[in-house]
Every structure is written in structure tokens, then in C-alpha cells.
């Protein structure tokens, strides 16, 4: 059984989500999860898991844009419009 198959299997096991470490080890052994993988799983060691799975690249999460391209205000160093009063309380945190 490879790592992703094992992970899928674990993800579908209700008993593992609430199991104590010793019990979880027993369940993983019953599911024929290799010992090296068990160790990484039980210690919640994501780096070891990625190493075992041969993953090298960093993953970027999907990042939604705050608005449509033309609607995003540009940082152009212009002073804010009159309807946008400057926050006098802006020093609130810097002072405290």
C-alpha cells in the first residue's frame, strides 16, 4: 500500500479520528500500513510524510483576488479622496 492510499484509507476511518495513540497504532497495523509510515502518521510529521511520498515542491493555495482586475484600487501615492477621511485613530496601535 502506498502513502496516498494509506492516507485515503485513514481519512475514511471514523475510529482513527478519535483514537488514542496506542489504539491508532493498532488500527494502522491492522490496515497493513508500513511501520515507517505509521511512525510519521502517529507523530503528525508532515515533513517526513512528504519525504516518504517523494514530494519536493512547495504548494501554493488558491488565492482569490479581492476584486475584479479593473476594480482593485491602485497604490499610486495620491492622497485619499475627500469622502475618505484619514483615520486619526490610526496611531491607536502604534502608540499602545
Amino acid at each position, binding site marked *: 500500500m*502506498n*502513502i*496516498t*492510499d494509506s*492516507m*485515503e*484509507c*485513514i*481519512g*475514511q*476511518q471514523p475510529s*482513527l*479520528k478519535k483514537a488514542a495513540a496506542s489504539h491508532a497504532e493498532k488500527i494502522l497495523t491492522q490496515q497493513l500500513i508500513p511501520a515507517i509510515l505509521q511512525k510519521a*502518521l*502517529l507523530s*503528525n510529521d*508532515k515533513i517526513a*510524510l*512528504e519525504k516518504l*511520498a*517523494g*514530494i519536493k*515542491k*512547495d*504548494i*501554493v*493555495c*488558491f*488565492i*482569490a*483576488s*479581492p*476584486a475584479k*482586475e479593473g476594480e*482593485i*484600487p*491602485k*497604490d499610486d501615492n495620491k492622497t485619499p479622496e475627500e469622502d475618505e477621511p484619514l*483615520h486619526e*485613530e*490610526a496611531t*491607536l*496601535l*502604534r502608540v*499602545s
Partner: protein
Amino acid sequence: MTQQLQGSIVCLGIGITLGSHITQLAKNHITQADVVFVLVSDGIVEQWICEMNDDTRSLQPFYQEGISRAISYNNMVNAILTEVQKNKKVVGVFYGHPGVFACVPHLVIKQAKEDGYYALMEAGISAEDCLYADLNIDPGECGCTQFEASQFMLFKRKIDPSAYLILWQISIAGDTSLAKFSTGAKQRIILVELLAQTYPLDHNIIIYEAPTLPINSMRKETITLKELVNATLNQQSTLVIPPSEKMVTNKKVLRQLSEITNKNKVIHLCEIN
């Protein structure tokens, strides 16, 4: 009636936690596709999808720090549609829900439909769904407003302090370049100042992260609003602000509704007599 072209695109969500949230329908779509494009939140999850279909292509290379995400997303859309136009059965796999905080699936489906192809979105379990379960929050209890964090900062949005406020993508709050993968304390100071116009600085807030791997635990870290400036935030972090005020009764509407009830009672009594 216009004739439907042979190519097709299905954008689906595989949920947040590997193995726990994927549906059998989603699995069937993936295994039966000619080409699968994948954009997920974890390397192991990506590998898991790659093992389901031999022609699985990651959309990750389109992301590059310093390049506007608008360009990256256009390139992702074009890459997917190019395969649809070759009359292939194409599947786009996204983590969470493909239609929540994800423009690519929406753009792909819209364009494919306009071009006469079969296009469908299949729902998935989103981070929002996990948040309600993990934090034991019912958005129906006192209401819930939510914004993308940068949008909340860049535009004048209204906060209801008697409802929950959820800010997504908090780790890149205040990024106007669309080209960064994280922002820092300077932007967060401005965010906290903005929130402090509504909430006290010692108001308890929650940093939440749903687990992507079944071995992980969710992150539920309660801090004060002021502490947000120096909090450890990751790409998956979401900010949850519980209500700071009680709901106020709208007496005018209550009176109007009570008048309707009283009138109906009179009418009902007249009908009986």
C-alpha cells in the same frame, strides 16, 4: 437548438481533508477523464489525485511570486480550455468547493458554455463547512458576514458586530499587488485598526485552519484582536470574529408585524360572527 461540441469540462471539489471529503462521483469523474487538471492545497493531496489518472497536470507551475495572480489565472483557464477544444473529456480538480474563493473554475465553465461545450460544476466540502463543524458555529444563530480579507480592507464594507465576521485569506491581507504569497505586520496593523473601529482591542478572535491531511488536527487559536498583528498565519488561516454585541430588536418592524396580526385577528373574528 445549437449543437453541443464533443469536448467537456467538469470542475469539482474534493473537499479539504484527504480521503474524508471526496465523493464517489468526484472519483469517477477523475478516473474517467481524458485529462485532469489539479489545483490543491497540499503536495500529498496532489499526488493522490495524480495516482487516480495517468494524465493529471498540476496547475501549480502557473503560480510565481512576483507575477500577478490575474495573469496566472488567465493562463490556467487557457490551459484547461485548450484541452476542451481538442474535444477531450476534461476534469478540473480543486480543493474545497470549486466555486468558493476560486475564479478559475467559474471562468472556465462560463467560457466553455459560451463556446458550446458541456460544462458542469460539482460541489465539494469547503473550508467554510469545516469551520462551522470544528468551531461549533451555526451561522443561522446570529448571522454571519464574510469577506476576503484584502477586499474588506480595500473597500468600505459594513460590519454587523452582532453577527460573526469571517475574513478569508488573512495571511495576505492588504496585498494590492496580487503578486505576493504573504503580507506582514505592517498590513495587519492597518487591518486591526480597521477592525478596532467596531471591536474592542481585547475582543477574543479565532484563527482557524481546517486539516488537509487526516492525521492533522484543526487549528483553533483564540487570541485578542490586538494580538493579530504578530500572530502566526499560514495560507490556510482564516480569521473568525465572534459577535461583540447583542442583536437589537427592530421595534418599528415588530410593531408593523403585530398590527398585521391584530388586523387578521379582527378579520377572522368578523368572519366567525
